């Protein structure tokens, strides 16, 4: 068989457009995931039992079922309930964000519990509320520690976002499929798609390593 570099070159604009969309949904999803995960992670260690249980159910459900199935539920099943179609973009970000939030919750929970309990005592003994102590003392310290696992989650999510191609959302993987449907260049296109994903994930891990180094220094000081 022959490998057509021309096909790769000609497909690049469409693939890169898809890659930009992939980055966009990943960034929005991880942002949503971090917000949800922060609150769910705190809820997981809360003294309020119903809150703790609710968070545990959330985490268990979204970590224990496939993301693909979650995407189907949100995009195909939910509209049956509400009678309204969901925009694929909204569906993609909602599914990925909520799913990621479950993993991020566990990351934050571990990060928060790793902070010495003397820190909470010091804050509380100064008369600060639990919320203020969390906000100004515990979470800033936890955040520095969870940078590496958060980076891993970011990478995992970027790869998993390829799943939203199944609802016809035109990100990198879907655009690859569309080009192949036209050109039959499975070898050229899938390899190109893989390389583009690789470049993106490597960039993220480099960026995380840089952050980790910078924040570790400032934690030491």
């Amino acid at each position, binding site marked *: 068989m022959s490998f057509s570099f021309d096909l790769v070159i000609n497909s690049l604009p469409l693939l890169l457009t898809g890659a930009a969309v992939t980055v966009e949904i990943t960034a929005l999803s991880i942002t949503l995931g971090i917000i949800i995960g922060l609150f769910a992670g705190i809820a997981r260690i809360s003294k309020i039992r119903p809150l703790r249980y609710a968070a545990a159910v959330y985490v268990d459900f979204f970590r224990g079922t496939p993301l693909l199935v979650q995407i189907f539920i949100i995009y195909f099943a939910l509209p049956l309930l509400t009678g309204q179609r969901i925009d694929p973009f909204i569906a993609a970000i909602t599914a990925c964000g909520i799913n990621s939030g479950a993993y991020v919750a566990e990351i934050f929970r571990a990060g928060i519990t790793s902070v*010495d309990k003397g820190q909470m*005592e*010091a804050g509380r003994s*100064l*008369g600060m509320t639990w919320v203020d102590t969390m906000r100004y003392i515990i979470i*800033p310290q936890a955040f520095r520690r969870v940078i590496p696992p958060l980076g891993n989650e970011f990478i995992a999510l970027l790869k998993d976002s390829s799943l939203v191609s199944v609802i016809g959302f035109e990100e990198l993987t879907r655009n690859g499929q569309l080009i192949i449907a036209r050109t039959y260049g499975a070898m050229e296109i899938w390899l190109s798609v893989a390389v583009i994903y690789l470049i993106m994930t490597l960039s993220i891990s480099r960026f995380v390593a840089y952050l980790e180094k910078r924040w570790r220094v400032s934690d030491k000081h």
Partner: protein
Amino acid sequence: MISIKGLKKSFGDLEILKGIDIHVAPKEVVVIIGPSGSGKSTLLRCINYLEEPTEGQIIVDGTEISGEAKINQVRAEVGMVFQRFNLFPHMNVLENIVLAPMKVRKISREDAEKKAQELLERVGLADKWNAYPEQLSGGQQQRVAIARALAMNPKVMLFDEPTSALDPELVGEVLDVMKELARSGMTMVVVTHEMGFAREVGTRLLFVDGGRIIEEGAPKDIFENPKEERTKAFLSKVL
């Protein structure tokens, strides 16, 4: 200033405090000594509700501690210094000191920083305001911790073995700050193994063992004429 009545504290089935009554008058320096595991740290931690008493009543400056709002209100008036300092490692010295006054007392950053500088001067660390805790020695960290507690203008200061985690040569600088504080009229409750400090600075000494106050009185009297066998046994080991 502090009134403790019938204080009991259990962890599960284990009863640590078995009924404690203490009254601390303003400007008193009450020193609590006793063997490890005697409950002396737990007693101190009950005063500002870092440990919730199982039974009993604690009144600080006329306010009985009950409910979250009251707890925060009382804690603002009660400074606490920990064995392990517990400075906030992600903030420099100045930020460590101004945080609570700004968040709890709602005073302006400018006023908080001015007060912080005065306190750093007082504990002899004026030049360290922008250092991070990790860059300081244990003795310096503990002096910052004292300044941090004082920044809230507390009516009482609690010290939980403040020199136990320090290298021997650094103990003196922390005790000096505490002595100065006592002389300035601060009401203090100090759990310590520093018998010299207890004798020199304490206005009253409590010997705690097995979750009870075994003996109390003027430090000099107890050191020279302990009445209880357990006090004698303990003192013979530490003096």
